[in-house]
C-alpha cells in the first residue's frame, strides 16, 4: 500500500506532464500555424495585394524588433513607464481618498456618486484633446490622462470596499469599545485597501492603453512617440515591432503585478486577525 502510494506520488508529475502534453503540443501547433499563415500572407501579398500589400513577414518584424531592443527601446520604455507610474500612483491615491469619503458618508455618497457615475462613461481617451489644451504636450497632460483613467476604475472599487464592511463586524467592534479612529484604522481601511489593490490591477491595462493614445497624439517621447515616428516614415516592419514591444511590456507588467498581489494578500489575513 505505502509502496504503491509512494510510486504513485513519484510518477504523478510525469503523469501530469503526460496528460498536459497533447494540450501543449496543440498550443504549439496553433502558434506555428498562425505564424505560417502570416508568412504565406506576406509572401502572397508581396506582389501587390491592394491595400494590404505592406505586410512584412515574421522574420523581418523579428529583425526590426531586435534592432529596436538594441537601440532606443530602453529609453522609450523608461519614458513611458515614468508617465505611467506617476499617473497611476496619483490616480490610486486620489481614488482611495475620495472613495473613502463617498463610501463612508451617506450624504456625500448620495450627492456626488451620481456625478462620478455620469463622468465615467466619458472614457479618459475622450479627454486627450482637452488635456492637451490644458497641459500642453509635456509630461503634465499624459500624467493627467493616466491618473484620470486609473481614478475612474479604482474609485468604484474603493467605494465598494469601504461601504461593504459587514455590519456585524462594525457592531461587534463598537460593542468591544473600539473608538471611531480605531474602527477606521483596523476595519474600514483594510477592507478598502484590498479592493483598491484589486482595482489598481484592473486599472493597469486601462492606464497603459491611455499612455499609448496620449503618446500617439502628443508624440514627444516614449513608446507611442516611437510608434508614430516609424508610422510616418512608412516603415511597416518597425511599426509591427513597436506594437509587439507594447504588448510584451503590458504582459510583463500584468504578470509582475499579479505576482505582487499574491504576495500582498497574506497581509490581509494578518490585518483582519489583529483587528478585533
Amino acid at each position, binding site marked *: 500500500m505505502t509502496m504503491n502510494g509512494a510510486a504513485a506520488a513519484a510518477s504523478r508529475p510525469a503523469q501530469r506532464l503526460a496528460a498536459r502534453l497533447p*494540450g501543449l503540443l496543440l*498550443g504549439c*501547433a496553433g*502558434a506555428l500555424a498562425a505564424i505560417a499563415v502570416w508568412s504565406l500572407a506576406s509572401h502572397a501579398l508581396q506582389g501587390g495585394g491592394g491595400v494590404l500589400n505592406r505586410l512584412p513577414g515574421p522574420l523581418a518584424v523579428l529583425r526590426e524588433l531586435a534592432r529596436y531592443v538594441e537601440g532606443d527601446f530602453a529609453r522609450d520604455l523608461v519614458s513611458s513607464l515614468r508617465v505611467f507610474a506617476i499617473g497611476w500612483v496619483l490616480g490610486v491615491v486620489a481614488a482611495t481618498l475620495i472613495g473613502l469619503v463617498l463610501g463612508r458618508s451617506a450624504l456625500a455618497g448620495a450627492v456626488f456618486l451620481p456625478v462620478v457615475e455620469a463622468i465615467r462613461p466619458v*472614457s479618459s481617451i475622450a479627454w*486627450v484633446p*482637452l488635456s492637451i489644451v490644458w497641459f500642453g504636450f509635456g509630461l503634465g497632460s499624459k500624467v493627467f490622462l493616466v491618473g484620470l483613467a486609473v481614478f475612474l476604475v479604482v474609485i468604484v472599487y474603493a467605494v465598494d470596499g469601504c461601504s461593504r464592511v459587514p455590519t456585524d463586524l462594525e457592531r461587534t467592534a463598537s460593542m468591544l469599545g473600539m473608538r471611531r479612529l480605531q474602527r477606521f484604522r483596523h476595519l474600514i481601511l483594510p477592507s478598502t485597501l484590498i479592493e483598491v489593490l484589486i482595482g489598481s490591477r484592473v486599472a493597469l491595462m486601462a492606464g497603459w*492603453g491611455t499612455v499609448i493614445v496620449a503618446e500617439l497624439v502628443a508624440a514627444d517621447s516614449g513608446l507611442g512617440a516611437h510608434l508614430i515616428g516609424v508610422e510616418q516614415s512608412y516603415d511597416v516592419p518597425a511599426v509591427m515591432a513597436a506594437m509587439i514591444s507594447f*504588448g510584451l511590456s503590458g504582459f510583463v507588467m500584468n504578470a509582475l503585478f499579479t505576482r505582487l498581489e499574491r504576495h500582498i494578500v497574506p497581509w490581509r489575513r494578518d490585518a483582519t486577525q489583529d483587528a478585533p
Partner: protein
Amino acid sequence: MSPAARREQAISVMALGHAVGRRVLLPLVGVVIVLAIWQATVAIYRLPLIVLPPPWTVATTLADLVGTRAFWRDVGVSLYEFVAGYAIGTTLGVATGLAMGESRRFRQALTPVIESLRFIVPFAWIPLTILWFGTSYAGKIMLVAYAVYFVMTVSTARAIAHVDPTLTRVGTMLGMRPLRLALRVHLPAAMPTIASAARAAAAIGWIAVVAAEYIGASAGLGLMITNAASSLATGVVIAGMIVIGLIGAGVSAAILAIARARPSAR
C-alpha cells in the same frame, strides 16, 4: 376611507417622497455643486474661454453644434464605423468563443495565439491601420472589430465552459447532435454572460473609434474634437466630450435593452 388606511397611504406617500429625494434631489444637488465650482473657478481666476469656458457657454455651444449638418455627419460617420466593426467583431468573437468552449482541442490550439494578441491593445494598432487603410472607414471598422473580437471570444468561451452540465446531459439524452446542442442549449444558457460582455466590448469599441479618429480620419467625432482643440475652441471640445459620453451610455443601454428583450437571455 378608514383612518388606518389613510395613515398607511400617508406613510407610503412620505416614503415615496423620501425615495424621490434620495434618488433625484440629492444627485441634482451634486450636479449643481459641481457646476457652481466650475463657474466659480472660471470667475475667480478669470480664465479665458480657450482654457475653460463657463458651463453656460458650453451648453450654448452644444446647442449650436446640434443645429449644424457637419456635426450630424461626424456623429453618423463615427456611429457607422462603430456599428459595422462591432457587428463583425461580435459575430466572429461569439463564433470563435463557442467553438473554443465546445471543443477542448480547438481551445488548446487557439489559446496561445489569442492570449498573445490580447496584450497588444487595440490602440497600438491605430498607426498600422492608417498605413494599411489610410484615413478610410475600413481601418476604423477593422480596429473596432479587433477590439471587440477578443473580449467576446474570451468571455463566450468561459461562459460556454460554465454551462450547467445537467443541461448538456438532458440534451444528449433527448438525442441532440453536438451542433444542435451547442446552438440550441449552450448558447442560450450562456447568453446572460455574453450579453454583459457585449456591453463591456461596446464601451471599448466605441472609444477605439474615437481614438483612431484622433490620429488619422477624414470625418468623425474624434476628428471634430482634435480639430477644435488645435484651434483652441475649448467649448466645442467639451461639448464633443459630452456627446461622446452620451453616445457611449446610449449604446450600452441599447445593448442591455436588446439582451432583455430576448426571452432566452433571461
